[in-house]
């Protein structure tokens, strides 16, 4: 075979697999989160939670249905395949690389993701964006990006997100009842 064609095929295959990988990433609702390991050293408080399907399954087995908090959590995570949280607080303003947060925000412009809520507070320089991944009229993913000068949080929930169940978490984790129909943008 002509070497030029051979190389072209290899490059095309590689590009196709990259595209397939990227679309799969968007399709299952999992965002590619930057590595914040170095940032954790600079932060005064940091939360880094990675609950893949296996760990989520393990966690579910250890939830005690007799405890209201656990029972609510068990109910809320039904249909959820993964939960990824990165949250950092700093002693000084903008100690975190904004580009990393923007990189995550950019992924939410992929097809399927819809912005559910956008909050901007100029006084507190606070910004909260809530996105859902809609597939076949179902929310198959949730992303929250909240940033302030001294903190930022990224939450990515993968799987069938039932907003009504999040409703039912009210009082358990400080989650309020959201009138999503009215507030939806």
């Amino acid at each position, binding site marked *: 075979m002509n070497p030029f064609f051979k190389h072209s095929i290899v490059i095309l295959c590689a590009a196709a697999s990259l595209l397939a990988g990227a679309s799969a990433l968007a399709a299952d609702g999992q965002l590619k989160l930057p590595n914040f390991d170095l940032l954790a050293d600079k932060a005064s408080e940091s*939360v880094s*939670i990675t*609950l893949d399907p296996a*760990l*989520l399954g*393990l*966690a*579910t*087995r*250890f*939830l005690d249905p007799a405890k209201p*908090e*656990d029972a609510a*959590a068990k109910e*809320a*995570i039904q249909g959820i395949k993964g*939960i990824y*949280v990165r*949250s950092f607080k700093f002693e000084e303003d903008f100690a975190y690389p904004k580009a990393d947060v923007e990189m995550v925000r950019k992924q939410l412009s992929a097809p399927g993701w819809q912005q559910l*809520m956008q*909050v901007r*507070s100029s006084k507190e320089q*606070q910004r*909260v964006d*809530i996105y859902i991944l809609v597939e076949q009229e179902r929310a198959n993913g949730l992303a*929250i990006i*909240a940033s302030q000068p001294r903190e930022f*949080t990224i*939450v990515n*929930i993968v799987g069938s997100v039932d907003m009504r169940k*999040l409703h039912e*978490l009210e009082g*358990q*984790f*400080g*989650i*309020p009842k*959201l009138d999503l129909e009215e*507030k939806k943008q």
Partner: protein
Amino acid sequence: MNKDFEQQLRDALRPVDPEEGFEQRVMARVASEPMRSRAKLTRWAAGLALAASMAGVAILGAHQWQERREQEGLEARRQLLEALRVTGEKLDVAYQAVNRPSPPPDDESGA
């Protein structure tokens, strides 16, 4: 014929001296018998001890695995509750911002 048979019988039953060293061989065999039993017993005991220690190691391993699994499970549970708490906290921020009453029009006009 009867005479022949009698002779044959006599020949067959005539006393014969044992071969040389027969006595020593018999004595040596008699002496080795308890040793053999002891060796057999020792082998059994060693086998049992090995099996018991292997069972002990397996039980200990299983116990440690279960303990580690339980720790991992409790840690995963803690992380799950923490993740839901953080999620709730951020949803709460959005909720409060959305539900914050907008300032009356008079304020905006500066009157």
